[in-house]
């Protein structure tokens, strides 16, 4: 049958070059780079936990994502903190083309890997699947709509940006799943007397007191399965059809100095280069620079060596002498074999009118989204409680890329991705606090540290707690707690309880009690400590709601009113912070 294949063939190649020129050719290096960046991506997410954080740049991938930097620059007119690192991807793209998509992007790697794994097509089908289709224009519409929205002040790129999407997916689905696996396997191991530390690496939230849960994880999971599953239909479906970052880099690729060039005198139009073309960039005809992922698979597949990666190759169409159809064409003296004279298409194939249509949709989109009730001062949802250090809501929506890094790092699991109820479609998957799940730990400012765009400004502990130089401004308030006296045990049920007052972490406490001794219905005497709020002291940390024993719907609950970041949502006169931007 087949001769036994060795892993590495150490004989020199047929053209005389040594064996390592083949084994370590550029596609091998590319695969190594993909594995490298994917591994770092997973590692940086795994290390986003207070016990492991150290000084690791955990939001690095989001920071080098040039679309994040560009879109936030459009919406906020500034480049926050580390977002200048987007230049590390921007400049190579301008020089080499869409290298990011196939060398660095972890989402692209995921799609490519799954697609490769489940590929059962024969060569002919592969070739057909990798031809360019008009639907690939769609990502440019998505990009245009989102950039226009950003210019108006509603940042929505996070919905489909691949890095944001993948970080969000890991945070809400894969990591809790691996935590669950680690807990269960660890318990089984401990019961059998094995050392359960061996499995601790599997958990991304070790020593968390409870299994982490996230709102709407089912939808995010469905989305990832759907998008990755679409690779069965169209290879690299997301990258080719939906990815706004790909569209952005594709549009910039028109300036790229290097590109894949097809030698007309060698190309036999066999179309084998399409077999594994990742970008569906038509290398067999006019290369679409905006679609080419610089994966170099075509070079590997071409049996005639007709393809190469050239520095600003001169367009040769005009230099052909003779007629191709008659077979008399020559190019610089050599006979032209290929029947297709075009070699390059620089721009994305999006007609101008369609660009304008997309932009109009973007312009309309802004008022459609913003004028929904959820994000305005009138009728805003009290459950939209943002993390400490967040900027005011309109600015927040200009900055939040829904990456969910803050949700990932939060040690108490209080941060949750918002559904449609808390801040509308505009705020989908932005972080809000759900105090039935956790509470905001007093001495923690980790969310502000990992936010790449400054939706949650980097906040020192002194600023959060109102210490030292911030003593006059006071602590950051997330909201105010309210009592539902009809559900409170001492108020409505003759039952002593004072848990909320005990756990209130501020000093002096924001919960006081009216102490009253009563005779219960059964004749016993009890001392009831009936709690009341001191709104000028409450910082809205939510530990009272979390610890309240009425767990189905707590008798003390926090709402966003009174939050210090927002003038419109203050509760008490004079409680507005003077210096919010410090």
């Amino acid at each position, binding site marked *: 049958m087949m001769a036994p294949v060795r892993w590495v063939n150490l004989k020199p190649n047929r053209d005389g070059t040594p064996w390592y020129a083949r084994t370590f050719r550029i596609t091998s290096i590319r695969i190594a780079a993909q594995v490298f960046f994917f591994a770092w991506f997973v590692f940086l997410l795994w290390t986003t936990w207070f016990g492991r954080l150290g000084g690791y740049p955990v939001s690095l991938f989001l920071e080098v994502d040039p679309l994040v930097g560009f879109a936030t620059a459009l919406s906020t007119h500034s480049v926050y903190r580390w977002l200048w690192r987007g230049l590390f991807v921007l400049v190579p793209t301008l020089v080499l083309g869409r290298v990011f998509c196939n060398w660095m992007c972890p989402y692209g790697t995921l799609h490519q890997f799954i697609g490769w794994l489940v590929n059962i097509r024969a060569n002919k089908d592969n070739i057909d699947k990798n031809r360019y289709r008009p639907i690939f224009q769609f990502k440019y519409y998505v990009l245009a709509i989102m950039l226009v929205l950003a210019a108006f002040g509603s940042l929505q790129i996070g919905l489909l940006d691949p890095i944001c999407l993948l970080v969000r997916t890991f945070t809400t689905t894969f990591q809790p799943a691996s935590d669950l696996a680690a*807990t269960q396997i660890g318990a089984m191991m*401990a*019961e*059998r*007397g094995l050392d359960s530390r061996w499995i601790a690496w599997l958990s991304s939230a070790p*020593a*968390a*007191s*409870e299994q982490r849960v996230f709102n709407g994880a089912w939808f995010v999971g469905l989305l990832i399965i759907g998008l990755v599953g679409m690779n069965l239909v169209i290879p690299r479906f997301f990258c080719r059809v939906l990815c706004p970052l790909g569209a952005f880099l594709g549009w910039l690729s028109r300036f790229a100095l290097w590109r894949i060039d097809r030698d007309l005198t060698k190309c036999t139009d066999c179309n084998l280069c399409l077999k594994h073309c990742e970008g569906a960039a038509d290398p067999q005809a006019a290369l679409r620079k905006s679609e080419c992922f610089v994966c170099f698979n075509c070079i590997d597949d071409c049996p005639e060596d007709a393809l190469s990666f050239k520095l600003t190759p001169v367009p040769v169409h005009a230099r052909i002498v003779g007629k191709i159809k008659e077979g008399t064409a020559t190019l610089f003296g050599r006979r032209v074999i290929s029947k297709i004279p075009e070699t390059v298409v620089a721009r994305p194939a999006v007609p101008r009118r369609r660009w304008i249509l997309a932009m109009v949709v973007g312009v309309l989109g802004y008022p459609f989204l913003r004028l929904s009730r959820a994000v305005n001062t009138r009728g805003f949802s009290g459950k939209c409680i943002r993390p400490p250090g967040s900027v005011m809501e309109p600015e927040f929506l200009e900055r939040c890329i829904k990456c969910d890094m803050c949700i990932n790092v939060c040690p108490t699991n209080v941060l949750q991705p918002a559904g449609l109820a808390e801040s509308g479609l505009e705020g989908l998957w932005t972080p809000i606090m759900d105090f039935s799940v956790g509470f905001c730990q007093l001495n923690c400012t980790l969310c502000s540290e990992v936010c790449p765009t400054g939706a949650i400004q980097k906040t020192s502990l002194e600023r959060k707690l109102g210490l030292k130089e911030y003593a006059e401004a006071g602590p950051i308030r997330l909201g105010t707690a309210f009592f539902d006296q009809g559900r409170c045990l001492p108020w409505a049920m003759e039952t002593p309880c004072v848990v909320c007052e005990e756990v209130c972490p501020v000093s002096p406490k924001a919960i006081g009690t009216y102490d009253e001794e009563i005779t219960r219905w059964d004749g016993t005497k009890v001392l009831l400590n009936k709690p009341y709020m001191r709104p000028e002291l409450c910082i809205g940390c939510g530990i009272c709601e979390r610890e309240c024993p009425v767990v189905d719907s707590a008798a003390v609950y926090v709402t966003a009113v009174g939050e210090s970041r927002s003038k419109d949502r203050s509760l008490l006169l004079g409680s507005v912070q003077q210096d919010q931007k410090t």
Partner: protein
Amino acid sequence: MASHPCEEPDDVQARAEHRAIERRTFLKQAGAVAGLAAAAGWAALAPARWPLSLRDRDGERAKPKPRTLNLPAGGFALESLAAAKLGVARGTDIPKMLRGAIEAIGGLNRFVRTGDVVLVKPNVAFERPAVLGATTNPEVLAALVQLVYEAGAKEVRVVDNPIESPESCFHRSGIYQAAVDTKARVYLPVSGDFETLNVAGATWIENWPFFWRPFQGVDKVIGVAPVKDHNLCRASMTTKNWYGLLGGRRNQFHQDIHGIIADLAFMMRPTFVVLDGTRVLHRCGPTGGNLSDVREGRTIVASTDSLAADAFGWQDLLQRGDEALPNYFALAAARGLGNPDWHALPLREVRVG
């Protein structure tokens, strides 16, 4: 069967073979069908106690069983309290003293077998340096761990749930370093490590959060507690030491501290206990703070009877003489958890160096 004019005599044979083949296929399939049907029928209908039967007539079988955790019946004690002895070692060379005291109650090999997982429970309750006498002497702990490993234990676990930050308490008291140096494994408590323990018959702690994780797979438990004055219960020694295995809101315990200590003795029957009398915090306990509150005791006591060891410590090390024992002694003795009259136990005293 009437033969068709087109048929040849060979066809009969072919047909017979064909039918044979059909029969074989039929038999195979029928066998599979019968087997599957029988299996399904068995699982559904065979009486519940029979192997591989899944029958559940009244729904009881499928009900989730609530998980109650219990310590092994009889605890980790190997011999009955009636056979308890007291081993007292006096001197200043701690490893020799410890060896002497344990030899005096029968030797470590009597209690620890090769391959055992042994849990050692020191007192690391406070963030105080060892000289202040509020925690177990790290040298005593180190010597104990070494002895246990010599006896062939597979793993030694050093466990305590301090009230303050566990890391700081373990480090400041020197216990962490002592454990690391002797290759014992320290278990620092984390919220997920606690499970509700059922102690049937206890007054206050019948169901209470217990530091469960390090107890999984443990064969032997050894307590090693310092001798301390205590302003609430008047003395804190080996019986009160088990307080550090509980979680939850322990500050409620002061409402009936003597009842609680009796419950602790009821909850935990150790393999044996070591009373660390190298330093004695004879006043201002349990936190102390003044070096003048600490006196050199130069004694190590070992016994399988915690009450006897504590009573000895009360009289001899805290030098309370004829003062009445704290209430918890009587409460625990009434439940048969030990003999506070240590004179009644065979005592061997060893003088070392």
